[in-house]
């Protein structure tokens, strides 16, 4: 369990030091005024693609000797487009995706507890009404 704590700490420090958790950086991203956020996500994805392609060719596995636990999404588009749009609206308001909501609580911005409670409420309501939504 210590390993997950350490990886989480690396993630939290990185997102704070690079200002990815700042509402301002998200507002700047959605106005296309800076390369910063696109560089962050773009370089992470490029390296992620390289890593997974290398892993496949070289047969890398988890330390337990199992294939990587990549989640394969079922094909379709409705839930991804519609749910993604709803999340994007929340991301622009709070300036924080789920990771930063937790990280900002640690960084001492106490009002972030309000959108954190909101996210739990939103998750709960989704659980109640999901059968009535297109997926």
């Amino acid at each position, binding site marked *: 369990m210590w390993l997950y704590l350490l990886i989480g*700490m690396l993630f939290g420090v990185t997102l704070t030091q*690079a200002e990815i958790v700042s509402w301002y950086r998200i507002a700047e991203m*959605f106005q296309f005024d800076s390369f910063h956020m696109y560089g962050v996500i773009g370089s992470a994805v490029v390296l992620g693609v390289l890593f997974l392609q290398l892993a496949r060719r070289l047969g890398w596995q988890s*330390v337990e000797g199992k294939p990587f636990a990549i989640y394969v*999404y079922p094909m379709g588009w409705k839930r991804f487009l519609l749910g993604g749009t709803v999340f994007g609206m929340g991301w622009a308001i709070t300036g924080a995706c789920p990771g930063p909501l937790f*990280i*900002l609580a640690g960084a001492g911005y106490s009002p972030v507890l309000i959108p954190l409670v909101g996210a739990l*409420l*939103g998750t709960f309501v989704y659980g109640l009404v999901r059968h009535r939504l297109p997926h």
Partner: protein
Amino acid sequence: MMGLFENAWPWYVAGPLIAVCMAALLFAGKRFGVSSNFQTLCTLAGAGRFSDFFRIDWRERKWNLVFILGTVLGGALSGLWLRPQPTVDLSSDTVATLESWGLQDPGATFEPMELYGPEVWGQPGTWLILLIGGFLVGFGTRWADGCTSGHAISGLSSLQLPSLIAVVGFFIGGLTMTHWVLPYLFH
């Protein structure tokens, strides 16, 4: 040495470190995705009584709760100790736009005090904005089955079309909100 932490990390440091986090979790036999923790936390709070969506074995996801505990500690390490009084070096265009929205001194603090300053606790109107924003994050990420880490990083890295569609959705929602709603929220 201290300059390493006093200055904001550039994208070409942060992006690769995020990829390292994803790779480390995969080597450990897990996967990188934050928003499913909201579902786990609802389960722990007893939401299984209301919907089978929350009748999951939270013990299998305990590692991810430990991961987000780590992110909270990482935020504290950086925000309270390594870089306690950061300013954000925003583009001048963004500063001008945010000022026209009615925000004070954009970038002079790490977060806009209008949304995340201590005085917010005395402003119920701001609670409502933050609560709605958070609600959309929670509802949308479960509907889309992933957030920035699950779709934009893990999903795109594994070349999955559903994740690309989700990321397009993130931007449809984000751009709509940023250009049609946020300009009128702070006056």
